[in-house]
């Protein structure tokens, strides 16, 4: 079970990194003025949000090999989850950028900041407090989604629980333990960490304003 937990945490970390990168890229593409770039991002987001994660996962794992791209179960799991959550994250990033008051953009423009400086000094610090709470929710969702990789034979917590259940038939104990472990990871590790990030982000902006 603990070995499985390690795999679960590994999937969680890898997929989180991937989804953060994807959401930033596609979030920015989504607000691009270039119609083609925007179109690509929209299609990507609608596609990954419109279909079920499990379907995507199986598609990556069972169908891609037919095209000569063989992914390991672990990689397939991470890529599928990362791309799926990246689509949701992109919408959050887009919302965050749009939620920065127009006056801030205009103020930076009036002060003759370069676009790079405007983004870096004014806009981005204000985005974080806006997008972190929904992103935190999404990350907890991602933790739960990692359970799905068990279905493409990644030996994670869920897979172990299922395996032990098949051997011992002590269903209440083994699934109960698995549930508890997931709960502990999220309640005592993941959520406090994300709260901490939120507090830091909020404090930064508070200081900037003062």
């Amino acid at each position, binding site marked *: 079970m603990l070995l499985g937990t390690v795999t679960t945490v590994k999937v969680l970390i890898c997929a989180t990194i991937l989804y953060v990168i994807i959401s930033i890229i596609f979030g920015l593409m989504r607000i691009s003025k270039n119609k083609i770039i925007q179109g690509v991002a929209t299609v990507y987001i*609608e596609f990954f949000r419109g279909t079920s994660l499990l379907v995507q996962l199986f598609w990556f794992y069972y169908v891609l090999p037919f095209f000569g791209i063989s992914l390991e179960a672990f990689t397939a799991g991470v890529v599928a989850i990362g791309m799926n959550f990246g689509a949701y994250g992109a919408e959050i990033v887009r919302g965050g950028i749009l939620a920065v008051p127009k006056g801030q953009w205009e103020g930076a423009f009036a002060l003759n900041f370069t676009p790079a400086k405007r983004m870096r000094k004014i806009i981005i610090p204000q985005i974080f407090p806006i997008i972190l709470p929904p992103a935190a929710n999404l990350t907890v969702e991602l933790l*739960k*989604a990692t359970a799905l990789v068990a*279905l493409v034979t990644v030996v994670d917590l869920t897979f172990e629980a299922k395996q032990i259940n098949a051997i011992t038939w002590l269903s209440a104990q083994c*699934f109960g333990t698995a549930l508890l472990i997931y709960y502990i990871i999220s309640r005592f590790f993941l959520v406090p960490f994300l709260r901490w990030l939120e507090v830091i982000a909020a404090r930064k902006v508070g200081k900037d304003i003062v």
Partner: protein
Amino acid sequence: MNAEWRWDFAIEILPQMLMATLNTIMAAGTGYAIAVIVGLLFLLGQRTRFKIVNIINREIVEFIRSTPLLIQLFFVYFVLPQFGITLSAWVCGMITIGLHFGTYLSEVYRGALEGVPKTQWEACRALNFTTFYTYRRIVLPQAFPIAIPGMGNYLVGIFKDTPLLSTIGVAELFHAATAVGGYHYRYLEPYTIVGIIFLILSVPAAMGIRKLESSVNKSQGKVKN
């Protein structure tokens, strides 16, 4: 075995897949109906005056929200029989989905109720309205449009989580695809068709929800003015 897309095979399995789609839609609908009610129960638990009920309710909601639906499914499906309660996979799936998304919906309801400005409550108090009247005529009509997007999103969310039911043997769309794929040893067409069916159903649904949201907002605006 090759990577070519075979139209004849795709067309051959299509009727079977469409039949299974009906099952998926039914599962999503039933699960949602249960979730809406369970959500209300959790909301009541949250808003009652008894502190202990509040705390227990909070913990249950947190627990269900932060553990994977998949394991909850396994838990209900494998553990209940040990206590002498044997339910069909279908019933198990509906109960679990209802419980799981009920917790989410209770959060949506809560957010919607809190989204109604406090001054509205105070005004009703000042006008000496009863609590029931306040809810019915003042608070709920304002909370409803706030709740619409969240409720709609979870309807689509439930729909997209129904493939998990296949793991405990509910014969829905994804289950059919796996069965067909295993039988012919061709997974490309079945899984791709599943993806397309999901897209066809959920993208318009999401758009419809957005439309509904804006129309409800508009009608509320008129009422307020």
